[in-house]
């Protein structure tokens, strides 16, 4: 059956898998080779800029060299200041994401399953969705004050819409043929929802939640830029007002790391629920 690997049967499986026919390109097909390739450009540019500033070819006042950004980041982390800001931003995102996601799932489930609710609610929500979320800020500040409530509301609104759309769309797209299987076995409405609808909409819901989380980070930055005394967004604004570009870049890096980390946690927590999916995800 498998004629190819037979002569190499004694070799460890790891090397078998990695052996490519083109021996000369082997280094790029090693595990992590693609990651290394992807790092060439950013690392190269960073080193180039570092060298240019060190050699006095550039001032690096507005565009700080990597060493200074790392030093700033290190200083912020060592003094504990960074963690105060990270915690503040994270708390806001968590609260906003929690409210927005729960509301999005609830309203999406309602409009997805009840045609009357869809006709009643969906047009208004679609109209509200057309409003840029930042446009709500003045109103939210008037209503909820300048402290946490208005920020969390803004984040929740930003998270709500992608989750709502994803869930409602997933329910509307459930395969009628699978629902019929449930009918043939005479499932009650509750059992139909639990045993057919819920698993069927789960993958799309998880994607919607990831999108929502990404938007949550976008809006926490916006909310903190508009007025806050702590948070990574405040660190950005502070860097701008005090003319410290290294602090701005440090805050950006912290945002990137935090967003990626939260996304990975969300994926790690939810992936086992959708491992049955027949998709190309493994190869992506």
């Amino acid at each position, binding site marked *: 059956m498998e004629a190819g690997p037979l002569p190499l049967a004694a070799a460890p499986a790891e090397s078998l898998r990695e052996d490519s026919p083109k021996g000369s390109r082997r280094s790029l097909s090693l595990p992590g080779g693609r990651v290394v390739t992807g790092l060439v450009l950013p690392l190269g540019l960073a080193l180039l800029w570092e060298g240019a500033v060190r050699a006095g070819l550039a001032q690096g006042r507005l565009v700080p060299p990597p060493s200074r950004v790392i030093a700033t980041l290190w200083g912020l982390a060592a003094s504990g200041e960074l963690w105060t800001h990270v915690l503040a931003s994270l708390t806001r995102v968590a609260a906003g994401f929690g409210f927005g996601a729960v509301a999005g799932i609830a309203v999406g489930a309602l409009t997805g399953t009840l045609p009357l609710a869809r006709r009643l609610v969906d047009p208004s929500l679609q109209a509200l969705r057309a409003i840029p979320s930042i446009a709500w800020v003045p109103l939210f500040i008037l209503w909820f004050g300048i402290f946490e409530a208005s920020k969390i509301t803004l984040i929740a609104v930003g998270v709500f819409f992608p989750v709502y759309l994803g869930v409602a769309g997933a329910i509307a797209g459930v395969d009628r043929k699978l629902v019929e299987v449930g009918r043939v*076995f005479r499932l009650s409405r509750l059992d139909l929802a639990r045993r057919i609808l819920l698993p069927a909409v789960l993958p799309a819901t998880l994607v919607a939640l990831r999108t929502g989380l990404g938007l949550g980070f976008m809006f926490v930055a916006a909310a903190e830029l508009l007025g806050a005394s702590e948070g990574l967004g405040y660190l950005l604004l502070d860097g701008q007002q005090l003319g410290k570009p290294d602090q701005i870049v440090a805050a950006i890096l912290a945002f990137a790391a935090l967003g990626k980390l939260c996304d990975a946690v969300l994926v790690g927590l939810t992936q086992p629920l959708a491992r049955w999916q027949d998709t190309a995800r493994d190869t992506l």
Partner: protein
Amino acid sequence: MLLLDRLSKTYADGTRALADISLEVRAGEILALIGGSGCGKTTLLRLIAGLDRASAGRISLDGEAIAAPHPGVGIVFQEPRLLPWLSVADNVAFGLADLSRAERRARVAHALDRVGLAEHAGRWPRDLSGGQQQRVAIARAFVTAPKVLLLDEPFSALDALTRAGLHRHLLALWEESRPTVVLVTHDVAEAVALADRAVVLRPKPGRIDDAIPLPLSRPRQPSAPGSEAAARTILASLDRSLRPEGEPDRARPDASALWW
């Protein structure tokens, strides 16, 4: 006994799918519903399954009227329709939620063994071939021990070899509890291989054109003279059913050459 009494189905747009279908199916009989496309075969099956409501007439199983999915009626669809988030064994167990765990496991194991998929119990449906998936669907329908089993062209998407294998699996399961089987097909050879009686439907609107008894012994060989003669009779009847009414009947012997 499954009884169809002057059954009609007219869709909301006025299309008459079925008109005045009356049929008696004995307990334990395998009945093949055969006909050209669009003659309402699937519609009829969906009515018996309780998935659609008839416009007129009634269906009864042992005297009990059927108007909604009935515990005594199982169905295998044209596609496997397995739930992709359940393992093969859990798919087979889908209709057994009321049973105890041990009973459920025993029945599932037995059914999977019967369709030759015992070693695939823990796999996902996506890992199975089309023929294997359809076998899981057949096991899922059989495992609830229905009195009537409806099969809606379940083998039409499979190659001839796979189909012959599935016929064997189906008959093996049928032998155990001898349910009434109503098999919709457009394949004459399939009807001859499985059924005790073939009912030919005439399209627009769908109604019964002819009923041909198939008193052949089992197991059946497609090349046996009895099978070939039966196939010819069904083909001739099908040919007649597909021609507009009023057109003169052609000579029966060459009918098999004209069909398709």
